[in-house]
Every structure is written in C-alpha cells, then in structure tokens.
C-alpha cells in the first residue's frame, strides 16, 4: 500500500540516494538498514511527504503521494518519531489524543469518542495505567510506546517508525519490538528504521539496505541481512550466526 519507484531522495536538489524501489503492504514489516548518513531519515521524510522527492515517485494506495492532502496522508499513514523530551509537559493521554487530530472538525477539540479511542490504543499497548502520567517523566521505552499509541489512535493502516528502539535499554527495546510484532499480526503495515541488523533479521518481512547513495540490497531478511552484504555496507568483517534457539545474530568474524 506504500511504494516507491525509481526514487531519488535528498535536500535542496542535492541527491543523497537514488534508484530506490520498495513496497510495503498491510501485515508486512519493511525494515530500513544502513550506516549513519546513508539517507534513512531522508528516505523517511520523503515517504511521509515531508520533503519532495528529487526524482521518481512515492505511491500511497495506488495514488501518487503528491496528489494527497495532508489529511488524506494522515489517514493513510501514521508517523512514530523517536521519543524525545518535549518542551511542554503533556500527559500521555494529551499526546495520544493528538493522534485524533485528523478525525476532528477544523474547529473541534477531541470529544468523548476520541478519548475512548485514545484509551483503547493505550490499553492495546499495555500502558493504560500511564494515561495521566506526564510524558516527560516516564521511561524512554514507555514514551516510545506512547507515541506508538498515538499512531494507533490515528487509525491509519500504515505505521512509519523512525528508529523506535534507538537509545532504549535492553528491557525497553524488547518491549517495543514485541509490540511491533503484535502490530504486524494485527494487519498493520510497518516501516521502521534501525541500526540493529538482528532486529531486521528477526522482525522484518522485507529489508531495504541503504548505503553508498543507493539501495544496496532489498529483499527477504535471509537474503539481505547476510555476512557479505553487512560487511560490505558497514566496512567491517562480520558473519551472521545461527544460535541454538534458531535465531540469527550478527557477530564480528574472529
């Protein structure tokens, strides 16, 4: 339902990466991997329609992204930014209610049904008891889940997550990943970027590796998250090993 064809991305006419083709449907997880500065964030912003593509096209459903209004886009896909401390001390519920914005009349504030939807989204992620907590004073993982809840309250079938596990400790990271897996099972389409190839291997339906100004690899995790590809992309010598439990981990060759 989200696709890119022959996409070139960049800022101010300066190309960061080109020749990007990808697609993600409901019930799929597309994972973006790539070294720092390769253009993951630029690609995200282009897919979200926040910056225009330099060439090529992004499609939402079957329509070109440029032909959709902000409101139509917001009903198609929800953005989950990296959780940061905010200037204003909103409660978790206030933040999740903001996910309802696109469903409100232009001059309206959230009503009873919006509150119900927000509480349901929080319950869905197992953080219903945080509704009245101040979002700046809960743990990073809880805050990330709060932003996921906001995206769920937006009632868009596609979730775009910018490094949802960056700067989270082990417990919170596993918590967020478990929720992403559950969302996939609930037939949401998910796009997420990460620095962790293990996550990609573990969670993704499709992996897109961005490096060297192009799509360096694209396909199923077992074909893309491999020792040779990762070694080439990150410039280090690594292998992908299978653990006793059947999972795959990336390790330095020794």
């Amino acid at each position, binding site marked *: 339902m989200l696709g890119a064809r022959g996409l070139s991305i960049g800022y101010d006419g300066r190309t960061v990466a080109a020749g990007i083709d990808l697609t993600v449907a409901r019930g799929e997880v597309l994972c973006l991997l790539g070294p720092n500065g390769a253009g993951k964030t630029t690609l995200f912003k282009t897919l979200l329609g926040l910056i225009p593509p330099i060439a090529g096209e992004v499609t939402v459903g079957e329509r070109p992204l440029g032909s959709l209004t902000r409101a139509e886009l917001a009903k198609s896909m929800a953005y989950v930014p990296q959780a940061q401390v905010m*200037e*204003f001390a909103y409660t978790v519920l206030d933040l999740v209610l903001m996910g309802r*914005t696109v469903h409100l009349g232009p001059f309206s504030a959230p009503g009873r049904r919006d509150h119900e939807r927000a509480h349901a989204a929080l319950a869905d992620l197992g953080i219903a008891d945080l509704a009245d907590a101040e979002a700046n004073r809960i743990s990073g993982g809880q805050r990330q889940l709060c932003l996921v809840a906001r995206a769920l309250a937006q009632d868009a079938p596609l979730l775009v997550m910018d490094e949802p596990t960056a700067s989270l400790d082990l417990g919170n990271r596993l918590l967020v990943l478990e929720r992403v897996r559950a969302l996939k099972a609930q037939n949401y389409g998910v796009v997420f970027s990460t620095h962790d190839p293990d996550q990609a291997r573990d969670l993704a339906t499709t992996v897109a590796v961005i490096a060297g100004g192009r799509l360096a690899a694209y396909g199923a995790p077992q074909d893309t998250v491999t020792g040779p590809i990762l070694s080439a992309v990150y410039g280090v010598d690594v292998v992908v090993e299978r653990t006793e439990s059947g999972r795959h981990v990336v390790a330095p060759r020794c």
Partner: protein
Amino acid sequence: MPSSIDSSVVRPRADARRSAVVIGGLLVILLLAVLLAAMLGPYPLTPGEVIAAIARRVIGAAQPGPVDTVLFQIRLPRVAAALLVGAALAAAGASYQTLFRNPLVSPDILGVSAGAGFGAVLGILLSLPVFAIQGLGFVTGMITVGIVYTLARALRSQNEILVLVLAGIVVGALAGAGISLVKILADPYNQLPAITFWLLGSLSGIKVSDVQVVAPLVILGLVPLGLLRWRIGVLSLGDDEARALGVNVRFVRGVVITSATLITATAVSVSGVIGWIGLVIPHMARLLVGPRYDRVLPAAALMGAGFLVLIDTVARTAARIEIPLGLLTALFGAPVFVWLLARGRRMWS
C-alpha cells in the same frame, strides 16, 4: 508488561472538568477586579453604586449625574481597555510560546512592539493627533511582522521557525534603532518625555471611542485562535509531527502569526509598550490548567485581563502622578519569573 510506575509521576487528573472550574474561577476573579477598578479613584464609588448604575444603564434607565459620568465616561472605558490589552498580550504570548515551542518567547518575538513603537514615536515627533499616533503605531507594527514573515519565507530555510525568529530579531533591532533616532531628533522638553512615557506604557487618556476601535480588533484576533485551538496545540510538537498528524502547518501558523500580530499591534498602539504580561501570564496559566493550548488560551486571556485591570488601578490610584504600566508589570513580572524558575525546569509544565 512492566508498566507500573512511581505514583508521584501520575498527576492529579488535569481533565476537562478541572480546567473548566479553574476558568470559571478566573472569570469570577476578573469580574471582581473590574468591580474594584470601577470603585477606586479620586471619586470613590461603593460596589452598590457601581452595580446599580450599570443595571440602570442595561435596562435603559440611566440617570445622568456624577456617578454615571465618572463610571461611563472615565473609569469603565479605561477598565475595558486594560481588560482588552491584558487579554490580548497574554493570549498572544501563549500562542507564540506554543507556536515557537519556547516558553521564553513573548508577543514581541517577531518585532511587533518595536515596529509599533517606531510608528508611534514617529507620530509623536511629527506632532500628529492621538488617533493618528495610534493608527501609525498599529500599521507599522503589522508591516514590521509582514516584513519579517516575507523575509523568512524568501530565505527558504529547512528550519522555518528558526529563520522566522532570527528575522524577527533583526527587523526588531532595526526598528529599535529607528526609535533611538526619533528620540535624538525629538524636542527634549515636550516630545521626548511623551515618547519615554509612551514607551513605558499607559492607559491614561483612554476614551470610549478608543475602546470602540480596540474591542472589535482584539476580538477579531482572538476568535481564530479560539477556533483553531486544538490544531495550534498540535503545532507545539514541531512541524514534521504536526504535518504527519494531518495539520496544514503553514496555514495554521499563518493564522497564529496574523492573529497574534493583530491583537498585539492593537494593544501596543493604544497602551504603549507593556512588557512581562505576554511572557509571565501564560506560565501562570499553565500552572493552573496544564500545558494544553486549548485550555491555556482562555485561562491566560482571563488572567491577563484581570491582571492588567488591577495593575492599571494601582497605576492611577497609588500615587499622585500616573505610574507607567511597564514599570509596574516589570516590578511584578521579574520576581514572579524568578520564582517560576526556582520551581525548577518544570516551569513550563
């Protein structure tokens, strides 16, 4: 899943009912402040006299006399002006703090006060009549922000907010230099004191006709802010997030800047430069109703109105001469701001 948390993190429900009660309370306080302001002055009135005179006027049975003259020709127009200017400055401050995601922002951020000040002092230098001084101040305030906005758009930066603030500082500084130039050129015995007094803010000499101009302009600016209250609040998340949530950021931001500029320019042109209200009052509103803009806006407007009504009453009754409003608001604002800082970094909560 472990989501149990320290119970101190959970705030008492800052829900709709609570903020409705707070806003109702602020309205009552404002009415009491208006009553007090109407009573006090060189010709003191009792609460009964004030209420009876207003009631007679409302039912169309006014009795001409000294009470009505003092109340309706002198005192209430000034109280109404204080109410409107206070509400305008606090509402503009709350809006800009939300829009710029910065609690240290005041309504002057885009140069409107400096611009309006330049126009007004130029009017004084040219010995224009009072209404022309006010009109010139209003127009130059609006033009200044127009230049800032156009400049920021022309620079086409990725960070539109930052460029807007920097353009505001540059153009505001230029207008400030213009004010200094006018001061140097002004006649030091008549015009310079008038300029200095105007720049410190005052509501002396307000007439009914001033209120008839100011009221519709302030209301015209407040209505769009009230209508778009929820979307303006969403802008506080930043441009990218607000866009992804379906908000037409450029349109809403344009409405905020236009409305806040309109009400600030109106306020400054009629009252002169009154600092601190637009900075401090929104913080105090947030302490009462939480950070949500749809609640901060009415709370800040009511508090700003009540505050300036009281301050202006002090200004005209505390001493034998009129005390400039800017002095009194600074006397109040600076220590309150320090107190807010001392409450810790959560002051903008």
